Structure formats: structure tokens, C-alpha cells
């Protein structure tokens, strides 16, 4: 799960980290009072106006503006609220800005990078810093890898002081700033652990001209599998930032991801679902979605799956690909027949059922009288559904 910058900073602040803070507004009428409140509460004339969307690269896309005074801040805020922000992470279609964060501004002496995430290869968390902040870390890693310092954390011991020291030395800090950075790194690790984050990233972490270390931007992603123990954080979920059909699918425990093609697919198991998308493409079609109906494909899940796939107007044909293991194919077949009858499908449906009771399932489909195109094997199924989508 992703959250916004302002929410991530709230979490960081709770762990004692010094963050650049401010207030968020969503309605145009709140623009002026919000800016005034930030100016008053943070005792500052200049502010920063920041678009809040679940994507990086906001500054480059024009979603973050330094504003030296009230009038310019108003102008920037009004431009950013409601804008369609396009960044390298949103793709061409961009993301509508519904929330704007107005913050205090700092005079920046240095910009750094700090992040903790899982190193899958080592099965350990890795804390990495770079003296090159404010730019994409991928770029630093490619061009000047010597500027990145990493420490791997023993999961049974947690982060140790010597590791935080190594990171702070990596930023060439000394004196109070060194101590402050060390403390922030320990707090950051504590936050990462405590909230079950999959990544916490501060880019940039800044050294101000008066010698303070401050979190200027914050990114936090959470492990969906651990949300059961973080009710307060689950409540931070912003459904406006997610595809409405994906939100709907989740309610029925269906794993759905919308894509741009016209061949819908419904599959049991994530790996087989991906392989089905791939073979549709190989057959000359474009998959419209990923949909894993999970281990128990009942009549009910099949029906909900259909409803979600067909709410996408691009879909011209649907492929159902089930490998019955524990799931019995005859039950799935009954579910398909029932769903087709109830929903009165207007697009061709190709069905491939393999595994437990697949013969019985084929009989059920053949005798049902509903217009279903049976297929044998994945190649046959993919070719049939792509043809059907082309109207052949």
C-alpha cells in the first residue's frame, strides 16, 4: 500500500524525526487560509506548494513549487490543485492532483538520499545513503555508485550504532549534524520496522544552511500482508489514487489489475494468470487485465470476475483458464454457465478447463446451451480468444 508524502511525514514525526511540515487542503476555498496558517504557525514568509499523488518525480512534472511570498503561493497552489500531473511514474495519462500540501521552506546547504528496503538476494534489509540527494537514486547508482553507502541489517539484532555511524560518515558530516543524522537513521529504521514498511525513502534529506538535518520529502510503502496489525495506517489508504475496479475487485478477494488491451482473462493462480496474459500477446492479442481468482473458483467468484472484467469497455472477448487442482472443473463449469445465463454476456467467452473432472466439465458446457467456445490447451485457448476479439 502506498501513502502520501504528508502521511509519511506524520509517521516519521511520530518516531521523532525532524520533518519539513505543513498543512494539506483539498478544496479551492481552503487555499488562502491554509497558506496563511502555514506562514503563521511556521513563522515563515516563503512556503513550498506540493502536489500529493502516489507517484514520484512530482517536482520535475511541475507539481512542487517554491513560493517566496503569499501571492505567488496562492498562484502556485491554484495551478497545482486539479492539475493533471504527468511524471515518469504516472505514465502518459498522468494523475489528477486532489490534495495539495503547503509546507515551510528551508535554505538548503546540501541534499542527501536515505532509504531502507528489502534486499531480496540477501534476505536482509538494506539501509542505503548517498551524498547525492534530490536526484533519482537509479541514476546515482548507474553513474556514481561510489557515492552510495550501504549497510545490511541483521534481522535478529536490528540496526546497531556502528552502522548508523558508517552511514553518517558516508555523508561527510561532522559535529552536531553528524549526531543528528545518526539519530535520524536509527529513528528511520525503527519506523521501518514498526510499521512493516516495504520501503522508507527520504529524498532529499537536507542539511540546512544553519546546520540542521531535515526530512524534506518522504516516501513510505507498506506491506499489504501486514496491514492486519496496523489499523491506523490502513486507514490512510487513499482510494482516489487507485483504479476503482481494482478497489472493487479487492472487496471480493479477487486480484485484478487493469491493462490497456481488449482480451479479458480470468485465471486461477497468479503465475498461470501471467502466463495466460503472455500467451494472449503471443497469439497476436493484447490482454485487458490480470485477474487471479485464487484457489477456490466458485460460481460466485466467476460471476464477480465477469462483472469486473466486463466493466472495462475495451474488452471484446474473455478467456477463462482454470487448472483444476483442488478446485473441481465441473463446479467451475457450472459457475460459468450460471454466470453467463445471469449476466447475459455480450462478448464471446472462450473456456479452457484442465485437471480434476475436466471431462465432466466439458460435457456441462456442451450441454448447457449457452454460447461458450471450448478450448483444449493454452495455445488453442489463446488463439481462439484472440480471433474472437477480432470479430472472426
Amino acid at each position, binding site marked *: 500500500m502506498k501513502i502520501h508524502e504528508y502521511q509519511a511525514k506524520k509517521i516519521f514525526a511520530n518516531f521523532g524525526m525532524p520533518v519539513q511540515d505543513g498543512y494539506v487542503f483539498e478544496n479551492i476555498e481552503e487555499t488562502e487560509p491554509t497558506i496563511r496558517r502555514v506562514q503563521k504557525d511556521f513563522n515563515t514568509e516563503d512556503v513550498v506548494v506540493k502536489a500529493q499523488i502516489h507517484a514520484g518525480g512530482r517536482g520535475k512534472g511541475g507539481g512542487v513549487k517554491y513560493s517566496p511570498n503569499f501571492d505567488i503561493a496562492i498562484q502556485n497552489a491554484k495551478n497545482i490543485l486539479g492539475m493533471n500531473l504527468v511524471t515518469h511514474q504516472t505514465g502518459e495519462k498522468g494523475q489528477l492532483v486532489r490534495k495539495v500540501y503547503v509546507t515551510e521552506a528551508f535554505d538548503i546547504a546540501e541534499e542527501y538520499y536515505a532509504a531502507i528496503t528489502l534486499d531480496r538476494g540477501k*534476505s536482509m534489509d538494506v539501509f542505503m545513503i548517498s551524498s547525492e540527494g534530490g536526484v533519482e537514486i537509479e541514476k546515482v547508482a548507474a553513474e556514481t555508485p561510489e557515492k552510495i553507502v550501504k549497510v545490511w541489517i541483521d534481522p*535478529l539484532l536490528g540496526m546497531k550504532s556502528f552502522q548508523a555511524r558508517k552511514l553518517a560518515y558516508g555523508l561527510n558530516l561532522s559535529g552536531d549534524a553528524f549526531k543528528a543524522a545518526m539519530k535520524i537513521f536509527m529513528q528511520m529504521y525503527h519506523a521501518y520496522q514498526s510499521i512493516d514498511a516495504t520501503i522508507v525513502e527520504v529524498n532529499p534529506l537536507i542539511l540546512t544552511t544553519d546546520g540542521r538535518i531535515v526530512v524534506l520529502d518522504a516516501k513510505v510503502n507498506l506491506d499489504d500482508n501486514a496491514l*492486519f*496489525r496496523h489499523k491506523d495506517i490502513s486507514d490512510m489508504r487513499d482510494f482516489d489514487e487507485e483504479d476503482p475496479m481494482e478497489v472493487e475487485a479487492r472487496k471480493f478477494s479477487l*486480484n485484478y489489475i487493469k491493462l490497456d488491451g481488449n482480451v479479458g482473462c480470468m485465471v486461477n493462480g*497468479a503465475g*498461470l494468470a501471467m502466463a*495466460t496474459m*503472455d500467451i494472449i500477446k503471443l497469439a497476436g492479442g493484447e490482454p485487458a487485465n490480470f485477474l487471479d481468482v485464487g484457489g477456490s473458483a466458485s460460481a460466485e467468484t466467476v460471476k464477480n470476475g465477469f462483472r469486473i472484467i466486463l466493466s472495462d469497455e475495451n474488452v471484446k472477448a474473455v478467456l477463462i483458464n482454470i487448472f483444476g487442482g483442488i478446485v473441481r472443473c465441473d463446479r467451475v463449469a457450472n459457475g460459468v454457465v450460471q454466470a453467463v445465463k445471469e449476466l447475459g454476456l455480450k462478448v464471446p467467452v472462450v473456456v479452457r478447463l484442465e485437471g480434476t473432472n475436466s471431462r465432466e466439465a466439458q460435457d456441462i458446457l456442451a450441454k448447457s446451451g449457452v454460447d461458450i467456445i471450448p478450448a483444449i490447451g493454452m495455445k488453442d485457448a489463446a488463439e481462439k480468444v484472440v480471433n474472437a476479439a477480432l470479430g472472426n
Partner: protein
Amino acid sequence: MSILVNKDSKIIVQGITGSEGQFHAGQMLEYGTQVVAGVTPGKGGQQTLDNRVPVFNSVEEAVEQTGADTSIIFVPPPFAAEAVIEASYAGIKVVVCITEGVPVHDMVKVKKVVDQNGTRLIGPNCPGIITVDECKLGIMPGFICKKGNIGVISKSGTLTYEAIAQLVNVGLGQTTAIGIGGDPIIGTTMKDCIELFEADPDTKGIVVIGEIGGQMEIEAARWAKDNVSKPMVGFIAGQTAPPGRRMGHAGAIVSGGDDTAEAKMRILGECGIAVAESVADIGNLMKAAMEK
């Protein structure tokens, strides 16, 4: 021969009184697997599955009473990590964790513990292991398998079944099939399994099925290039997966570098593995590789 489990494996089922545990323990018994005990805290002393299997309060007790050396876990995600750790400290040698949805921070700790204790963990979020006609330690449909000489390794459950069905269609049976799981942290990697199959005299060919996300397939392929004498076929799911999106499995996400299907397929090919571009070609490619 086979790898990891066989007809002599003595198995306990952790979470045997839950609905999943009950159902699959029953299926495993039916396949001929030696399920010698179940564990559910608070239900020790009962008998389950028509009085065929005794229930104990702890893994330690179950091991003492039955001499079990292998365990399979069906407990819900909040308790799964601890179930693995309990099994590990009770001296269980091979642990399969079926549970899907274990928090990744839990798994980082579990991984450290099982490595330290020398426990072989398979999963989590996997279908388990089957050694054909000997031991079904998992949730896969046993009847689709046929005894033979191909080893199957896969991150995905249903793709494992798909591969097995294709192999059987072209006349190839299996020694052991392992679903290693689709999470970011798993106990046993693809490379570990290839190493075991290479050392198994009955296994003559190996199928590896990977997917987008992480570097495991690449690590496995590079190792296999220098160390494996047996023909290998590979498939990578997710050629059409958009970057940055989790494709069902918690670990199936393209996040940069060599973790795309395209990159992995290329590297597998460079390492001498016959790569199936289409999932439908796995069986035929293995057949061709075996006939060479």
C-alpha cells in the same frame, strides 16, 4: 531416489484442525503419505481424520511421540512465522509453509532462524512438494503426476500443474515437483532445488518456472551454467506485466534492473537453458532436450 521427501518421510501437520489443514491432511493420507501427527495448541490428546492421526499441543511433543522429521504448515498468516520457528527449534528437518500472506518482516527473521538451525524451509505461499507415488507434502492434485525422471521447480502453483500436465502429455514423468513460492523471501531458492536435482541420480532433466521480480532465476541460471550436467528447460511468466505492479504474488513485481521476464529469459538462454517463449511449449521443449 527423489529429493527432500520420500515414502519414509514422517509428517506432522501444523494447523491440522483448521478447515484447510483437515482437508489437505486427508488428501495427503489418501495419496499414501505418512501423516503421523497433527499439531493444534489446545487440542492435544484428540484424534482426527477418523482416528487415524493423533493431535498434539506442540511440535516438540509431536516429534517426541512420533519421530516425525517433516512438517507442513496451514496456520493463518499472523501465526505462520512462529509456526515455522517452532518446527525449526523442535528439530524438524523439512518444513513446508503453505500459508499465503505472511508479512515480509516476519519472513526476514524466519529465514535467519531456519538458516542458523539448518532447517530446510519450502515456501511460504507455495503448493508444497510431491515425490511421485511416495509422498505428497502439499496441496497439489496428486493424480496429474506420473512417476518418471524429470524434476520440476516453480514459483507458481497452477503453473507447476500446467507444466506437469504438459510433461505427462509428451510421455515424461516426474521424480519430484517443488513449488518454492512467490513471496519476496522464501526458504529454499531455485538454485538450491537445482543443486538437489543435479545430485539426484534418478532425475535426468529439470524444468524451472520463474516469474518477474527479484534475481533468483538469474542466480540459478548462472550457477547451473557451470554446475549442471542435465538438460534444463525454463519459462518465465510475466512478459506482459506492467512495471511497478504486484502481479498477485507478493514478489512478482518489476522494480528495475534484470527482473523483467525479457531479461531473465535472455540470461537463462545465455546459460544454456532451453527457454520456452510460450507456456504451451514447456513439455515439447523438455521432450526435445531429453532426446538429444
